[in-house]
């Protein structure tokens, strides 16, 4: 992940409205 990729990724996150991390603890699981 070089500087150019970080810059591109930053733009893509903004576009996709990904701006925070929230852990949902309730999305499940262990399964011849």
């Amino acid at each position, binding site marked *: 992940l070089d500087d150019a990729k970080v810059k591109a990724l930053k733009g893509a996150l903004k576009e996709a409205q*990904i701006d925070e991390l929230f852990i949902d603890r309730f999305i*499940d*699981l262990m399964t011849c």
Partner: protein
Amino acid sequence: MSAVPSHLYGALHPGLRLKNDLDRAVLITRPQPLTTRSYICRRLPPAEAIVLSLFDGRCTVGEVARLWAELTDRDVASAEEEVQSLLDFYLSGERAREDIFRLSETPIPEAHAYDPADFVIDARQVNLKERRLRFPYNVYFLTTLYCPQDCVYCYAKVRKSCESNLLAVERVEEIVVELAGLGVECVQFSGGDALARPGIFRIIESVYANGMVADIPTKIGAGPAKARRLREIGVEVVQFSLDCVDPETLDFMVGVEGYHAKAFRALHHLREAGLKVRVNTVLTPFNAAKARELIRFAGEMGNIFRLQFSAYGRSLFRHRDALFAREADIAGVEAAALELGKDYPHMDISVGGGALPPASDPQERQMEWTHRAFCTANRDSFVILPDGRVTVCEELYDHPAFIIGDLRRQSVMEMWNSPPARGLLHPPQPEVPEGPCASCAYFAECNADRGRCWRDVIKSYGWQKHYYPDPRCPRAPQGMRLG
């Protein structure tokens, strides 16, 4: 949990895979022949997948937090808090026991390096609710239902000769290319005897040429030249079924006089070719007392790295009650494994199988049912039949209620997204002709979410009653004994 020191390096366990799943990401166990991991599948929002992907084994916790702050244009303290909450989640409770995420004082070279851009998914489109994967990940291929053996306990719908309408090798090769493009990593072969199909080596070659691996179970093994060819193609592991080493008992269980000599020869050929072997043993009252000799034999072979005893479970096609392992049989094998296993630290021995009856206490039974494991059939996986039709579970074979497509005339994704495939998890309740499911208020959620074990349904109530409840369901009538 206290904060994770910022100087530590972190990475997902290499036995897991982060995947883009169209409108969410998934974290899923890689089906590798050498894996010892339990199977997990968690749907993730894109931000969680992106932060996990930044942990490439070369970045410290502090570096990931700073990078996340930069990527989201926020202060480092907020980003650090979020990264710590992610680590707290993955390093606590069940996730910690499952060894999902690793921390280290030094870089983790075996970590997979993902491109975080692969997980940029529009936040407005994210769907974490539906369990079914957008792209199938676990693929089984029953190469042929022909098997030259005649095992007394066989659960498969085997036949005495090869099918005349096998899917053409050229078409299989096209399917393999498509699977590789979908991110499938392993094609799990089965049968019949997987190696008894004409053209099988060309098919296995195609799997490896497309960057995937093959999991191959067999009872016929391979001669020296074929064993070498498997190794040259890239195969590292073969699963071999061996029920005991006593010649008379083995021949009886496999139903072929003189089979034992072929089996021992095949095992030696596999070892000579440099292949590792996983041995699967079906445990019945006929071979349980011979387990000690089998453990000794397998341990001395040197290339057998896992020995799995599975108690006989009801076969749809050749059942008799005398095959059910008794409690004393299982206890005896467990004791032998514990005692002799110490002499063979290179070999993992496990004893499992044999269905437990549902709890007799109604509340306990309801609790077991509510928290049952997800069925992965038609959610993560599908099964290609020898002629190219597709079913959802290996043991349903050509049952018409579970055929969801035909790869002779459909691509994998056309099949996966077809109305029969998607509809199988949402059956119309008015079409249930009779039985407890016809009037059950939980019907839609039961089928769409965790699912009924369709295999156990038809084993318990018969091939025709595929619409009956899972035998574990508190509303299910008493069915046939399964294990």
